[in-house]
């Protein structure tokens, strides 16, 4: 009944901080827990695409082959997470709620920069967890309604927030995905190109990183690929992903080499 903050996080901390993940940690080693791996994000003409593979690993074991790591943060933004899966998914749940809570209380959406800063604060507050080896590294992308373009933000474990101009990747396969995107991305690509490129980058990452799972045509498990444009967040359906995957395979086969011709 007291007037106060529009932040759910601040309210929760004041009301019952024990509900927040990762406060009051005991010391000691943390046993092997599932880790979520590669996320790629790239801008295109009119929005952003974010894609995540479906694998989670615990040590050398595959903990899950259909985990989802890309989520809608709100109607006009998406968040993808790499790192300790349990904490990362909780963080996303809290972040989604934080944005929705603000929207309901204030009656207006946060600016895209505001959302990105909020996420940075949340990452920073889980720094003690990161120091125990339970790091969570997100990538945030969305459509900036004020500027009319897609934007991507990357983070480090200390909560540092950096805007990326073209594309970004996080997680164990990010080195390979970023290398792939460096060759595949071009300015002014359309949505379909961007979705295919995102799938291509994940295939390249899965090729070289054991913790990244490529598209699985046998089980029909496709990466989670989402687009955020002026019309909002939309998840790309399986059929379109199967097509994109076939195209990528086609390109790779045509040049008889791993990687294939660009574009």
């Amino acid at each position, binding site marked *: *009944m007291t007037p106060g903050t529009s932040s759910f996080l601040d309210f*929760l901390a004041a*009301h019952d901080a024990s*509900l927040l993940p990762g406060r009051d940690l005991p010391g000691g080693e943390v046993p092997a827990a599932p880790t979520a791996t590669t996320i790629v994000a790239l801008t295109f003409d009119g929005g952003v695409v974010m894609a995540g593979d479906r694998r989670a690993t615990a040590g050398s074991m595959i903990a899950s082959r259909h985990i989802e790591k890309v989520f809608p943060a709100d109607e006009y933004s998406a968040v993808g997470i790499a790192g300790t899966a349990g904490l990362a998914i909780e963080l996303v749940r809290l972040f989604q*709620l934080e944005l929705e809570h603000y929207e309901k209380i204030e009656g207006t959406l946060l600016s895209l920069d505001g959302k990105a800063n909020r996420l940075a604060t949340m990452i920073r507050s889980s720094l003690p967890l990161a120091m125990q080896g339970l790091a969570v590294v997100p990538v945030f992308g969305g459509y900036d309604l004020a500027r009319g373009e897609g934007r991507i933000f990357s983070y480090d474990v200390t909560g540092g927030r950096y805007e990326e101009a073209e594309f970004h990747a996080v997680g164990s396969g990010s080195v390979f995905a970023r290398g792939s995107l460096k060759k595949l991305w071009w300015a002014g690509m359309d949505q379909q190109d961007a979705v295919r490129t995102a799938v291509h980058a994940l295939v390249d990452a899965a090729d070289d990183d054991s913790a990244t799972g490529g598209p699985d045509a046998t089980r029909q498990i496709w990466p989670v690929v989402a687009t955020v444009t002026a019309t909002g967040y939309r998840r790309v359906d399986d059929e379109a992903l199967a097509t994109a995957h076939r195209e990528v395979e086609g390109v790779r086969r045509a040049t008889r080499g791993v990687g294939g011709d660009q574009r």
Partner: protein
Amino acid sequence: MSMPFYVSPEQLMKDRADYARKGIARGRSVVVLAYEGGIAFATENPSRALHKISEIYDRIAFAAVGKYNEFENLRVAGVRYADLRGYSYDRADVNARGLANAYAQTLGTVFTTESKPLEVELVVAEVGTTEDEDQVYRLSYDGSVADERGHVVMGGQAEHLSQRCAERWEPGMDLEGAVRLAVDVLGTQPEGQAREIGAAQLEVAVLDRARPRRAFRRLTGPVLAELLGRA
């Protein structure tokens, strides 16, 4: 030494109730109507920013009349209650009944213990998967709760408008019919010609059963004008 005047509890409660009722009757009315696709809310409100109708949670909305600062506080408390509950359990575990109970406790406590009752009247509505599962609770300044069916009018000339509403409301109305009825009811006056309220003076929102997660939607601008047949 002077003795304080003795005031009987009956008189004390009656005075407080009269005070609250007077405050509530001063404002404009809010009409809440069930229609086939959900629940519609309408009120006369020229402000685009100071809302009387708001979203609380995925399937729950809130409408209020009375003093703005008082019901705004209650609204924020409701959003916090719902978000906290949804976060600690699951989104499916947040329902209008629990929220109505929480409001009833607050209103009842303030009515009996504070020096001044809250001059507000609220509706908490939840849209279900079918029309039978819709829930509409009306809460008064003293914490009393009524489980309403079909239609509710509160604030302003509530009794008079409620009668008008009952004459014309029927189950299974479409959205257009419901919004027109609500606006007609808002425009009626105790005597003389009914007023026509312009789309810019109206605040209209629905809990739309067909929407996937967040059912709350405001109807403004061209959409509203078209529904009213004044496009």
